[in-house]
């Protein structure tokens, strides 16, 4: 008990020093990327997503994806007709046809009008950029296909559920599709009213069909499509691939499907606020310092260093495991960079502090002698 104030002082000092050192180190790491667009383009939390993406994924029961390949307008019209016969709940087409004057225009326009649960794309920043047939469509919904990225080089991690446009609020295309499948879950997103929500990129894969498979009308394909939300678009358009935490070139079509799936899972990802991350990091670092002090005072000789390093390693592993479990389970995203850094640099701060302390006491002791 006598040592408590001394311990407390040392713990506070080491934790504060580790925090200062970690801030410098993290800023240095973030500035190392030669041409990174911004600090937001890099997040340590992407590691969870990346790791989880390589894990086991289940097949979605709500969403399917159809690749139009290089079909012309008449072909896409035939594809939409074939899809309608399979009775999906919603069909989102992720392609703009801005100019008329090509073969198949009338067929395409008719097919879009006749497809039930159709969701058509809009650019929330330029609602005037529309496909040529939008004026003829009476019964379709519209959804924003804008991605949450400042530039084509930014990483897409989140989506904006609702956009304010000059024509009123416009839902993201993923939300518009989810609305038709599970209105209750879509309502929850609107109720939360968040400006942006995180996209879950791992855990679920989609059945992906080529246009030919739909056109052939295979009963097994029809069975899969029935009652689902179907995203129709081009999976091989190099202008429509984007950086995501899960992979470097993800087609926009799949990102919208992931957004819809995130909503339909009913488990939104939540980011732990920064202040809480700092608090957790400080507590973990304090715990490490306390363990180090206990080991040091037991005077286990050379084994002390080994024990300190061992406890440091175990704490780091435990922290990462907890962070990963929180992500996989309840969908809580805990940025592990600061706590990891503080545990790592806590040892350095500890060594520096006691190194200087020993040095000064030896010098003072000599002088007194």
């Amino acid at each position: 008990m006598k040592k408590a104030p001394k311990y407390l002082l040392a713990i506070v000092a080491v934790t504060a020093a580790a925090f200062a050192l970690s801030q410098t180190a993290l800023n240095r790491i973030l500035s190392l990327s030669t041409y990174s667009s911004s600090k937001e383009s890099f997040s340590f939390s992407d590691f969870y997503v990346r790791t989880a993406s390589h894990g086991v994924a289940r097949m979605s029961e709500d969403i399917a994806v159809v690749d139009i390949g290089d079909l012309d307008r008449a072909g896409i019209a035939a594809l939409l007709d074939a899809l309608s016969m399979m009775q999906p709940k919603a069909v989102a087409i992720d392609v703009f046809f801005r100019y008329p004057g090509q073969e198949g225009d009338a067929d395409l326009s008719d097919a879009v009008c006749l497809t039930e649960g159709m969701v058509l794309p809009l650019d929330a920043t330029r609602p005037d950029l529309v496909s040529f047939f939008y004026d003829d469509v009476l019964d379709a919904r519209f959804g924003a296909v804008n991605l949450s990225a400042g530039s084509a080089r930014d990483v897409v991690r989140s989506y904006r559920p609702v956009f304010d446009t000059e024509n009123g609020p416009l839902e993201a295309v993923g939300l518009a599709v989810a609305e038709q499948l599970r209105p209750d879950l879509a309502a929850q997103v609107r109720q939360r009213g968040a400006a942006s929500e995180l996209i879950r990129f791992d855990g679920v894969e989609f059945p992906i069909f080529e246009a030919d498979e739909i056109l052939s009308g295979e009963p097994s394909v029809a069975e899969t499509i029935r009652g689902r939300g179907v995203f129709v678009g081009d999976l091989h358009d190099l202008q429509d691939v984007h950086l995501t935490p899960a992979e470097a070139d993800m087609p926009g079509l799949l990102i919208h499907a992931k957004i819809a799936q995130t909503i339909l899972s009913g488990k939104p990802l939540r980011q732990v606020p920064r202040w809480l991350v700092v608090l957790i990091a400080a507590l973990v670092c304090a715990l490490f310092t306390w363990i180090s002090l206990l080991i040091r005072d037991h005077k286990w000789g050379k084994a002390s260093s080994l024990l300190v390093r061992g406890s440091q390693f175990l704490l780091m592993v435990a922290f990462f495991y907890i962070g990963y479990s929180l992500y996989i389970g309840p969908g809580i995203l805990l940025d592990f960079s600061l706590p990891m850094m503080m545990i790592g640099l806590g040892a350095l701060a500890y060594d520096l502090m006691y190194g200087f302390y020993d040095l000064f006491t030896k010098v003072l002791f000599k002088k007194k002698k």
Partner: protein
Amino acid sequence: MKKTLIFLLAALLALPLPAQSRYSVYKTKGTVRVCLKSESAWTAAERNRELQLGDRLQLEAGASVTIFDSSNSLLYPYETPGECTVMEAVRSVRDKAGSRTGAVNAEMKRSIEGHGAAAASYAVLGASFRAQGGAAFTDSLAVSLQGLAGAGAKNPKLALTIVPDGDAAVFKLRNGADIPLYVNILRISNGDPTVCLEFDGKEGSEGILLDAGAELVLDQYPFVVLEGARYLPFGTVRCYDTRSLQRALRRSDKEDALTAGFVY
């Protein structure tokens, strides 16, 4: 035995790894010195000397150094006196070029808004655009690339002129299409296509926007004309990540990359 093994391992680790750098000294003016990352001695920066990103440059007042990037033939003229790393110099020049592109784009957008033409999309969209404005650009691009050895098929809508600028050159582009386009240039050398202009994620990261009928001299991107290389302009209705195209070009599905999606 143990000592011999440790010695061999240490000797192996000490062997310098042959690293071919994409950067080299193109020309200098005044006193410019280089210090290798691993050394402390400064030596004069000679033409064609290879540079690593971590090497240091030292420029006296009034001096300048132009760095050559062999990956895309671009030149980075740097003239700030003092010391810096090659990476800092390249980044500084690229940032300046990006700012200039950003300013030109802003001006171009104002012009496009002014005359109310069907505009390009400035936002990052997760969607495709299909066959706008008539013939697919894909066709002309694919034809040009397939017939590399033969007579060059020209893109009918985008006109590219290479304007000599001292011992380098700059691109001049004219958008003959009836809609604004984001433009870029493919360099085809020995059958290998490379995207010439890669845009950083700061100002001007969306690429170069060119209004319908507009002409632009890209003097913020000076380059060296590669002997035997062909330069092919291409345009898209939306901004995109040039690295995706570059990656696809490097992969084996080169033909897919060239025939996929680049339409206007």
